[in-house]
């Protein structure tokens, strides 16, 4: 269904880009883009064309901090039922992960959708059920939608939802890496549309293209960035028009705005990024785990957590190093024994690199 394929066009694009003798670096912020790039060998192909593409902080599981993981684990230890998307339960906090706690007998349940977590709450009326709400603008509306439908009184969320544009700004402000263009995430853009990216092109003169997830989408997206650079332009273009509308998804945006307020937040590998978090508004505080369990969470809130020893996920997430440049990659850190989150998540660049290139 909707596998866009056009071999002839793909060849033309590659030949055109190859002729140009480029030396560029682009960044995308989406695990699914990385999957398409690596699975299809496009990362290698682009490199041969003089274009280095880095993933950046585009993996919600990866940018969730050790502190947030410690918070949810503390709640698990305090006898709450924890519900979470799959990848998240494998990420270690300071030492243990939710999966380890599950092994110790704590009640941790993997869900496919927040609606499944609501079902768990309805079936366990005498227990507190907490959902670890991770994800970017793509996922936040699903949480918002449930919050607006009068969730059960024993249901709460730990909101770890984050916004992409402030992270792009943070990367540019930190200035550690020269970035010639951003490939913007198709499904975040499905929700937010094109406008929230405009300040980046305007203020930082960085070209941007929203792209889809077929190989041909990324070929076209990269070609559009190259064209902007040739013309000396820096604008927001949309390659993924079959799904992304200029205005995004107004219903989803309205739900986000009704439920969440914007706050500053630390991301793994980053200092606090201003205006990058979606936290529940006061009128939903009866379902806000951070408010309801404030006293219990105090010990974690007051503590600072360090990254696992030797783990360079922070630098991978800022795009400064590639996965293979981390000394732990493929040695001490492998998917069955991950040290850092980028090796855990199917959207993490280390996991993707390992699964497609190292598994023989």
């Amino acid at each position, binding site marked *: 269904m*909707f596998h866009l394929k056009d071999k002839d066009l793909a060849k*033309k694009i590659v030949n055109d880009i190859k002729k140009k003798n480029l030396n560029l670096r682009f960044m995308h912020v989406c695990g699914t883009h990385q999957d398409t790039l690596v699975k299809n060998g496009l990362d290698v192909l682009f490199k041969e064309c003089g274009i280095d593409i880095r993933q950046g902080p585009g993996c919600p599981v990866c940018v969730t901090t050790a502190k947030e993981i410690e918070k949810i684990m503390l709640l698990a230890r305090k006898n709450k039922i924890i519900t979470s998307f799959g*990848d998240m339960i494998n990420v270690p906090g300071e030492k243990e992960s939710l999966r380890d706690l599950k092994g110790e007998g704590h009640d941790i349940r993997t869900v496919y*959708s927040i609606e499944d977590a609501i079902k768990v709450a309805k079936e366990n009326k005498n227990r507190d059920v907490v959902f670890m709400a991770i994800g970017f603008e*793509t*996922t936040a509306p*699903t949480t918002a939608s449930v919050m607006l439908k009068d969730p059960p009184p024993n249901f709460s969320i730990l909101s770890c939802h984050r916004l992409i544009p402030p992270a792009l700004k943070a990367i540019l402000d930190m200035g550690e890496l020269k970035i010639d263009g951003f490939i913007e995430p198709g499904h975040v853009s499905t929700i937010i549309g094109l406008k929230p990216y405009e300040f980046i092109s305007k203020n930082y003169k960085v070209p941007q293209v929203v792209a889809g997830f077929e190989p041909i989408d990324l070929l076209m997206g990269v070609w559009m960035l190259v064209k902007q650079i040739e013309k000396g332009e820096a604008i927001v273009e949309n390659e993924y028009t079959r799904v992304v*509308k200029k205005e995004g998804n107004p219903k989803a945006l309205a739900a986000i705005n009704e439920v969440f307020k914007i706050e500053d937040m630390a991301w793994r590998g980053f200092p606090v990024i201003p205006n990058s978090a979606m936290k529940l508004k006061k009128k939903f505080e009866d379902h806000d785990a951070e408010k309801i369990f404030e006293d219990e969470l105090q010990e974690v809130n007051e503590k600072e957590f360090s990254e696992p020893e030797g783990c360079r996920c922070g630098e991978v997430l800022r795009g400064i190093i590639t996965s293979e440049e981390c000394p732990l990659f493929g040695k001490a850190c492998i998917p069955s024994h991950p040290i850092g989150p980028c090796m855990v998540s199917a*959207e993490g660049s280390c996991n993707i690199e390992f699964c497609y290139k190292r598994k023989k």
Partner: protein
Amino acid sequence: MCLSVPAKVMEIEDKDHAIVDYGDGTSRKVNISLIDAKIGDYVLIHAGFAIQSIDEKEAMATIDIFREMMEG
């Protein structure tokens, strides 16, 4: 996390839910409260929610425009 999969709306179950077919023999109940969905629409599913309709004609148009640009 932002992985989203296309599916076809087969049946509207209630105001907020529909049965969708993923085209590979699997179907599932999903939440449609974030979009205006009707039977026969192709939609994008993320974490159990339809987050947007897919415009197939637009997909082909993108390819056509591109082909022209490459030739021009």
